[in-house]
């Protein structure tokens, strides 16, 4: 066994993910920021936007759910662990910083996928049809990775106060909701809005979900998937690099 080899580090990242699932899925702040907030946000728009059809709004719900759930845990894990001294425990174990970050990301990804699938089933229960199942699965997987990496990026500034990255994440998530075609169709956006939308990974995910449900889309599917993959790659590499640099400052 080579403890520093990729297969062994992946196994250890999975162990960290299982620990995160046990410890953090039921945390109050995760439930509030990850589930209650997007539900109420969606209900507020749903009741106030009666002119928009359900077929348009449900993909928005799926997008909001994945963004909020996949970023609900990842920003706060490092702060929680730093505060309780358990990050030092992990740092003294034979796991790389990349494996610790990956483990936390996996826990976030699974949480995001689990809750998002419920919203997909809600859409189906409300009468929508899943026309492109494979596209839906690929896009949820990619976007969950991407949003989870965004969550981990928000945790880069060293702090032992979990509310700090949580608040920071809200400052990022709310603007993303409004520029990504969730509640306002991209076609109806002003030019500057569209420019901003191009830089939001949520735009491409929502576009893919709409395509999967109702075959309506703004960008070509291949562009959506490529953009999402590129964002995922850049954010994941960025968060790994930055956490490796800031880890000693947390300890």
């Amino acid at each position, binding site marked *: 066994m080579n403890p520093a080899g990729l297969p062994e580090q992946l196994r*250890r990242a999975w162990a960290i993910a299982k620990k995160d699932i046990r410890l953090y899925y039921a945390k109050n702040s995760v439930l509030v920021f990850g589930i209650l907030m997007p539900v109420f946000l969606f209900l507020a728009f749903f009741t106030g936007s009666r002119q928009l059809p359900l077929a348009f709004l449900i993909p928005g719900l799926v997008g909001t759910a994945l963004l909020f759930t996949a970023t609900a845990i990842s920003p706060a894990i490092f702060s929680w662990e730093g505060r309780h*001294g358990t990050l030092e425990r*992990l740092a003294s174990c034979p796991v790389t910083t990349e494996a610790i970050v990956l483990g936390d990301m996996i826990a976030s990804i699974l949480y995001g996928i689990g809750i998002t699938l419920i919203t997909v089933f809600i859409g189906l229960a409300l009468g929508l049809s899943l026309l492109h199942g494979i596209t839906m699965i690929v896009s949820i997987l990619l976007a969950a990775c991407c949003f989870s990496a965004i969550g981990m990026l928000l945790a880069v500034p060293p702090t032992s106060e979990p509310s700090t990255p949580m608040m920071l994440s809200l400052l990022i998530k709310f603007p993303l909701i409004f520029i990504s075609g969730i509640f306002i169709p991209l076609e109806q956006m002003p030019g500057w809005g569209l420019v901003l939308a191009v830089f939001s990974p949520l735009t491409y995910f929502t576009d893919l979900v709409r395509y999967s449900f109702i075959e309506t889309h703004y960008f070509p599917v291949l562009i959506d998937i490529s953009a999402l993959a590129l964002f995922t790659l850049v954010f994941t590499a960025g968060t790994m690099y930055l956490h490796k640099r800031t880890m000693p400052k947390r300890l």
Partner: protein
Amino acid sequence: MTAVIHASDLTKVFGKSTAVDHISFDVRQGEIFGFLGPNGAGKTTTTRMLTGVIPPDDGSATVLGYDIRSEPVQAKQRFGVVPETSNAYTDLTAWQNLMLMGELYGVARAQAARRSSELLTVLGLIDRRDQKVQAYSKGMKQRLILAMALLHEPKLLFLDEPTSGLDVQSTQMILAMLRDMNRDGTTIFLTTHNMEDANRLCHRVGIIRNGRMVAIDAPEKLKTAIDRVHTIEVSFDREVAGDALAALPGVTGVKRIGDKWQLTAEKQDAVILSLAAFSQQNHAAIVTLNTLVPSLDDAFLRLTREGSP
């Protein structure tokens, strides 16, 4: 003897303060090495650099043959760490904490389960294995993190104040376990404030002051090294003259204390030989003979005092 830890010019700077200032030392295979120093001397910072938790700003360290900066995973795989404050996951049970350690060290599940049962039994926690750690006392938590550090059967164990603030039962249990492990070949790097623990356990101690190593030696040698003049207490089964004792080779002073004589000398072994000869020549049997060496506490205080060499 092979060096298990080799620190060379290890340095750590926090802002304008140099916490550890170019310290170099070796820890030999199979020994219990005590790392002593007053608060803020740099003990914990040194330990954290050696365990790969924080990187040094200068210098290098190899642990079990692996450079802790360039091959940290290989080194960490082979040693265990018991930090000063318990850092088990309090929302997990003792068993879940141990299984997590098993996975993080790549120990097969069946082996991890067997080893966890053994360790929890030896450390008196087996009946509480399925209880969340948050309900544990401080002593129980400390015993648990010792078990977590030992799960993968490390060749080297770092301990930072392992008995600090613990009850007698937990302290004795931990110390006994350390002795047993050392007898079985585990090298131990023990950071402690407790001179009694260091005196009883350690083969050698290193004393750090203001980030610099001021002494490394066996506890007994350190105690004697700090005083050039030694004191020997002797009593005989019959009266002897103080002048006769003062005239013995090597004796620099004589004082009567109750029924005993207290002699001072620069070389105590020469005086002891003279006393044996004196006893024989004067038919005065020696009843008691004690060499009064400074305690490790004295050595520590002397060596860590500002301005001392």
